[in-house]
């Protein structure tokens, strides 16, 4: 690191990042105030028609969670200004705002979850996870001294990830197969989801392997007449890893993660080779696998059944449909009702009833956001995701070599694929699967994994900027 000097620090201070953080801070403070007021109205201590005065305005203590988050964001901004002044300045405000909204939603939902699940500490825990996420982010960005270290040990990452998920598989098979999620590892009070880290490891592995064999993969091995035979010997290790990962997820019945990993694989093989034929071939294989899954597993059939279920025609439901809407399809039907009741501007934070949707805090958070922030709020959130993804791909384009480019693009596409799978699932456009909405869903492993991804992206951006400077 370079020597610290005050004048230098002022000159290279990340003003743009700080300015971009102002509106997110205002949004978070405003939403917290709204939430506290809504609680007062809800509890009946204040009537909705009562006039606003200093007495019923929330006290400063109520704002502590948000103030804490603001403090952490400013601290990260200062730390980045001192040590990584040239790295991307747009990602942190975007991610900070999303995490803040996630914390507010957890604060809002936790105490109101339906009785057996009521959890007043949900928001506090989410806040702690976000703080730990920032620590993971700082460890990643400071610790990743050389990208070569990641590239050289690529088999290690893949094997580590597979072993971790394998342990959970054994663990979950031993306990019970009837709980909805099986990829959890309980170590003391911690509920770890190793699959969250596995996806990062797999992207590193794919990026390192593809960048090493980019020639062979891009060209195809042999040609017989018009047919292009892909170089199976070169693609073997990738296919093996993919197959292992998918098998594990079939074992623990995590359809969403299988979908996510297959999506990452498709993106990376396309980026590495530039050939649409690989993508088409993989999609055909995917449809075949999906069909087999549909035939073999009841729970997959159930998910598809929910997609074809007609909600609008609720007045003419048959008894069987009634039973579905209050039984297996309860989650999706309630989610749609929540979304529709939100309307355009939403009911306002704390004023809706998002907790009628089962597991709203993690899998169905999208519907809670739709109900309380409305269509306008949802569009804005999707806009934030779009900008994060744009920024990630821009970091990828600017990166100096194939490994860094593939790594940045692959990590960014994790966000993209996850968001589309779970948002579409919540809206009954795709079968609903249990994967988190990045930064918004409740869940420690997911938040920490997402912050590690942001750390790697900003480190790549920093390396690129430094190389540019060295050349100039």
């Amino acid at each position: 690191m370079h020597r610290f000097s005050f004048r230098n620090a002022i000159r290279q201070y990340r003003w743009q990042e700080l300015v971009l953080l102002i509106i997110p801070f205002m949004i978070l403070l405003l939403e917290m105030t709204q939430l506290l007021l809504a609680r007062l109205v809800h509890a009946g201590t204040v009537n909705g028609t009562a006039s606003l005065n200093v007495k019923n305005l929330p006290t400063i203590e109520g704002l502590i969670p948000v103030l804490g988050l603001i403090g952490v964001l400013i601290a990260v901004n200062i730390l980045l200004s001192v040590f990584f002044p040239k790295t991307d300045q747009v990602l942190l405000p975007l991610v900070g705002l999303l995490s803040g909204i996630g914390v507010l939603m957890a604060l809002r939902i936790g105490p109101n979850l339906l009785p057996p699940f009521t959890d007043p500490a949900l928001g506090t825990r989410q806040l702690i996870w976000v703080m730990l996420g920032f620590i993971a982010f700082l460890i990643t960005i400071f610790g990743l001294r050389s990208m070569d270290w990641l590239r050289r040990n690529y088999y290690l990452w893949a094997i580590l990830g597979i072993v971790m998920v394998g342990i959970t598989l054994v663990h979950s098979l031993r306990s019970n197969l009837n709980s909805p999620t099986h990829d959890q590892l309980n170590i003391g009070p911690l509920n770890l989801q190793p699959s969250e880290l596995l996806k990062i490891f797999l992207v590193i592995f794919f990026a390192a392997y593809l960048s090493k064999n980019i020639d062979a993969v891009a060209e195809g091995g042999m040609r017989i007449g018009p047919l292009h035979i892909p170089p199976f010997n070169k693609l073997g290790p990738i296919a093996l890893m993919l197959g292992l990962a998918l098998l594990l997820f079939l074992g623990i019945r995590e359809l969403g993660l299988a979908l996510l990993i297959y999506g990452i694989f498709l993106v990376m093989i396309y980026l590495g080779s530039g050939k649409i034929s690989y993508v088409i071939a993989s999609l055909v294989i995917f449809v075949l696998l999906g069909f087999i899954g549909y035939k073999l597993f009841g729970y997959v059939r159930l998910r598809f059944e929910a997609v074809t279920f007609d909600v609008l025609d609720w007045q003419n439901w048959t008894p069987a449909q009634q039973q579905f809407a209050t039984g297996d399809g309860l989650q999706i039907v309630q989610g749609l009702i929540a979304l529709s009741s939100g309307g355009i501007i939403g009911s306002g934070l704390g004023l809706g009833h998002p907790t009628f949707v089962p597991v709203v805090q993690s899998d169905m958070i999208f519907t809670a956001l739709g109900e309380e922030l409305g269509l306008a709020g949802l569009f804005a959130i999707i806009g934030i995701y779009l900008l994060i993804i744009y920024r990630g791909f821009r970091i990828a384009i600017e990166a100096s070599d194939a490994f860094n480019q593939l790594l940045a693009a692959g990590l960014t596409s994790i966000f993209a694929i996850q968001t589309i799978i779970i948002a579409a699932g919540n809206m009954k456009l795709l079968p609903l699967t249990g994967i988190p909405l990045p930064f918004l869903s409740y869940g420690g492993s997911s938040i920490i994994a997402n912050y590690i991804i942001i750390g790697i992206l900003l480190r790549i951006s920093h390396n690129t900027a430094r190389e540019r400077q060295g050349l100039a």
Partner: protein
Amino acid sequence: MPLQLDVFLLILRLLLIVLLYLFLMQVVIAITRDLKKTAAVSANPENRAPPVVGHMIVVDNADGISSLSPGMSFDLAPITSIGRGPTNTIQLTDNFISSEHSLIENHNGIWYVRDVNSKYGTYVNNQPAPANKPLPAKPGDIVKIGFISFKLVQ
């Protein structure tokens, strides 16, 4: 008349949406400015692609072994690397071309063709170029890379 709580909550709700879109607008403006800066940097002549000093036209694609059709033309810079790998100036996908095959240089108007340890060799008018030693060539000469023949044009 004092502000009612319900009205205040409605104002907060609307304000939130306005702020969310203001934030998006601010980010988009920041991104656009960033893109313009990048565009200005690449418009700077010092950063532009090297000048084109000649061309290489495919004359024989070895009876269709390669996918290049006769008549295709490639631009040559003062130093041009040819090979299968993505780092080359001209990337040719052909099984008989090594990942780094040859180097064509132009010094003061004279062309030099150099073979970079390729498997199937580089030839100037059917004369094999020794590994890593430049072989002079002039416009109109036939340069063979692997099994593909090119004509050098100024």
